[in-house]
């Protein structure tokens, strides 16, 4: 990587025999996330963990002075995976700034597009990338003992998914050769087509605009979507029971596995799928339309719902420094002193942030990353909470379940669970799945929630499709409403990117962008120790993670750490380089192609 790193100096107080191990890059495609750890092999535990990013983006700097209507076109280019989530969120923020409410049909089309996106991205990540960490080839390399157990373990849901033993499931997950792996690729393709039907292109949508969409709404459009969606619904009926069997086996076969990737329950969800019957995009009524979303926003601390009010969520946002390559903006301009309701806005709120990059050497005792530390200020305790998104689904399901507000037939939030009803499909009868609030926020539960949320998105898609057709049949076929760009405005957009919370904060002056700050999920998850010394979620989820891998330091693959980090969905785990202390460099690839590339 391009960043120069100071050698990790061990604090003299530690007497343990620690081995430094680093994975850099660990992420999808751009490969800018690195995980640096110290592992205590004698006690089979990760002692310390630092999460770093070696890339500076600068969107908040070059957005200044641009036409506010260009925001979604530009911010969509932030990411090659979830650019449409940025575009959607930017449009939400623009709708608020421009005071425009899209026609109902436009809103349903956006929801259908985003539902397809969740179905696509979770699907391909879960079984083409995460699944590799649980497949036969991987398990044989890291835990041969577990493999022999799996061969004997009968799969309780075999009648639903067709795999007799857990080992059969693991074999089906082998990259390129596994049956389920290949089926997943095929299904993913359908969901991307669904997305393109609604938003034109994946991942930089062409048909999204402030004020609605440019998609031409016809019966044919929704038929094309629905026929594909029903194939996905059918797939979910085998996918959910298969993953339940797989993940439950891990708990049974490796007692204590719930500790892997476990951290305090500190989850944030900014809500998804606006309800056009309630949502008018006015800041003043944000609490109401936030609660009307079809994925309820919420902050969950220690299993309790702290708030599901978007207004509270917005006011509590704080961007802290501490270990990142930026200077403080205390002496810079304050853009927003109070919100439109007169609430005081903090200097470290995204509306008031000024980004001042300060490149320097990576030093794990000082500053070591380009990611700032977003936190949520808890008024009750005065704590700056390091919320995580758990990769998205676990936080969404948890906040939705506790709030108990969503009730659309296909989905019902009960207060302690979420019930998902899938209708009869081509070959399979109706199915009902219930996601129950788990006991832990850990790697396995993050992964399990992902599968359930795939079913949730499919069920929501069915509802949105019915609603859209209803509009069309009633003769309301407009998808876009005109607007005027004001000279002065402040606004915010709240959405769920695939892997978790996403917010865009905008300040408009003289009809141009004066300040713009997007906060995507990986900033919440991958951030460093803040000024109070509170570690970021990856860091504290990996720290103290027990090691179940049977390999010693020489052949160590770090699979348990990988599972912990990847449960947060940190983008594509394509190339992973491993660095062992004592000047010995070992490089391996944990890519989905590892069978072909191998270690070198």
């Amino acid at each position: 990587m391009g960043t120069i790193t100071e050698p990790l100096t061990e604090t003299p107080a530690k007497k343990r025999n620690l081995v430094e191990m680093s994975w850099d890059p660990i992420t999808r495609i751009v490969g800018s996330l690195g995980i640096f750890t110290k592992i205590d092999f004698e006690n089979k535990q990760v002692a310390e963990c630092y999460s770093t990013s070696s890339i500076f983006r600068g969107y908040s700097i070059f957005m200044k002075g641009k036409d506010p209507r260009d925001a979604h076109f530009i911010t969509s280019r932030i990411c090659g995976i979830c650019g449409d989530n940025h575009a959607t969120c930017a449009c939400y923020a623009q709708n608020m700034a421009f005071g425009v409410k899209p026609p109902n049909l436009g809103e349903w089309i956006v929801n259908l597009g985003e539902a397809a996106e969740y179905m696509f991205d979770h699907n391909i990540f879960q079984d083409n990338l995460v699944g590799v960490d649980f497949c036969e080839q991987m398990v044989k390399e890291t835990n041969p003992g577990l493999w022999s157990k799996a061969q004997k373990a009968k799969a309780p849901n075999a009648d639903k998914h067709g795999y007799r033993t857990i080992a059969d499931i693991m074999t089906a997950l082998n990259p390129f050769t596994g049956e389920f792996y290949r089926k997943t690729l095929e299904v993913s393709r359908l969901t991307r087509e669904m997305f393109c039907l609604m938003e034109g292109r994946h991942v930089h949508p062409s048909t999204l605009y402030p004020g609605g969409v440019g998609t031409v709404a016809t019966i044919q459009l929704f038929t094309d979507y629905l026929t594909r969606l029903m194939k996905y619904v059918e797939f979910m009926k085998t996918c959910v029971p298969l993953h339940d069997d797989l993940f439950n086996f891990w708990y049974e076969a490796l007692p204590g596995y719930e500790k892997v990737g476990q951290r305090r329950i500190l989850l944030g969800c900014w809500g998804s799928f606006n309800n056009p019957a309630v949502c008018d995009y006015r800041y003043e009524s944000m609490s109401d339309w936030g609660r009307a979303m079809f994925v309820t926003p919420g902050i969950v601390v220690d299993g309790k719902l702290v708030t599901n009010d978007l207004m509270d969520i917005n006011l509590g946002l704080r961007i802290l420094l501490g270990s990142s390559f930026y200077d403080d903006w205390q002496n810079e301009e304050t853009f927003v002193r109070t919100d439109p309701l007169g609430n005081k806005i903090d200097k470290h709120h995204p509306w008031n942030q000024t980004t001042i990059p300060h490149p320097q050497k990576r030093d794990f005792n000082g500053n070591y990353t380009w990611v700032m530390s977003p936190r949520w200020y808890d008024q009750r305790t005065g704590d700056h909470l390091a919320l995580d998104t758990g990769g998205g689904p676990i936080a969404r399901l948890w906040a939705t379940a506790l709030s108990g507000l969503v009730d659309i037939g296909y989905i019902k939030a009960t207060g302690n669970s979420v019930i998902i009803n899938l209708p009869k499909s081509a070959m399979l009868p109706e199915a009902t799945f219930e996601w129950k609030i788990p006991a832990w926020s850990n790697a396995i539960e993050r992964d399990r929630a992902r599968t359930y949320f795939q079913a949730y998105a499919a069920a929501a898609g069915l509802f949105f499709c019915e609603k859209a057709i209803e509009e069309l049949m009633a003769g309301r076929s407009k998808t876009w409403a005109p607007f005027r760009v004001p000279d002065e405005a402040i606004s915010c957009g709240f959405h769920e990117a695939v892997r978790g919370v996403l917010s865009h904060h905008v300040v408009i002056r003289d009809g141009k962008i004066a300040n713009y700050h997007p906060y995507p999920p990986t900033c919440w998850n991958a951030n460093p120790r803040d000024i109070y010394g509170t570690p970021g979620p990856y860091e504290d989820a990996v720290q103290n993670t027990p090691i179940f891998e049977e390999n010693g330091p020489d052949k160590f693959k770090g699979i348990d750490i990988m599972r912990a980090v990847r449960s947060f969905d940190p983008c594509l785990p394509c190339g992973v380089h491993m660095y062992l202390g004592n000047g010995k460099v070992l490089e391996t690839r944990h890519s989905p192609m590892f069978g072909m590339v191998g270690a070198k």
Partner: protein
Amino acid sequence: METLTYLLFQAAGIAPMIPLDDKLRPTWLFGKTVHEGCDRAAYYEQDDFGLEYGTPKCLVKMGCWGPVVNCNVTKRGWMRGIGGCPNVGGICIGCTMPGFPDMFMPFMDEPSGARFSTAALTLYGKMIRALRAITNNTVNGEPEWRRPGRQLITGYQPRPGTYQAQSSRRAA
């Protein structure tokens, strides 16, 4: 991916030199403009422009740069022929062009060049739209002979003694 495959074929000596334009882009991808492949181009030709998003008409007045951008998305769609840009209601913002994004912002305003071109087109476009409407109306009618009734008026002359000859005699 297909470009890489082509290069492999080329390296193996099975394919000729990859066809490139003067910017070294494969011509099968960049040889035509968005507009040349766009199924909304006929609206442009007929001076029939969408003045809001969400209509099936040409989007040039809404900020589409398709007429001057090299890209085949309108022909190929986004995946498996589905999706795309102006063909499905999204303005072309020139994202395949070396001048992107600066030369195309603000995206949602009509490109200045389009103002001249569309102004020059007004008379011609309106005229052919009107003429086509007349012809379109005509060809939407069925030919004279295709109507219910016992009399055969296609001009076909049945030979005497055949079934048709007898039946048409009876009708007469």
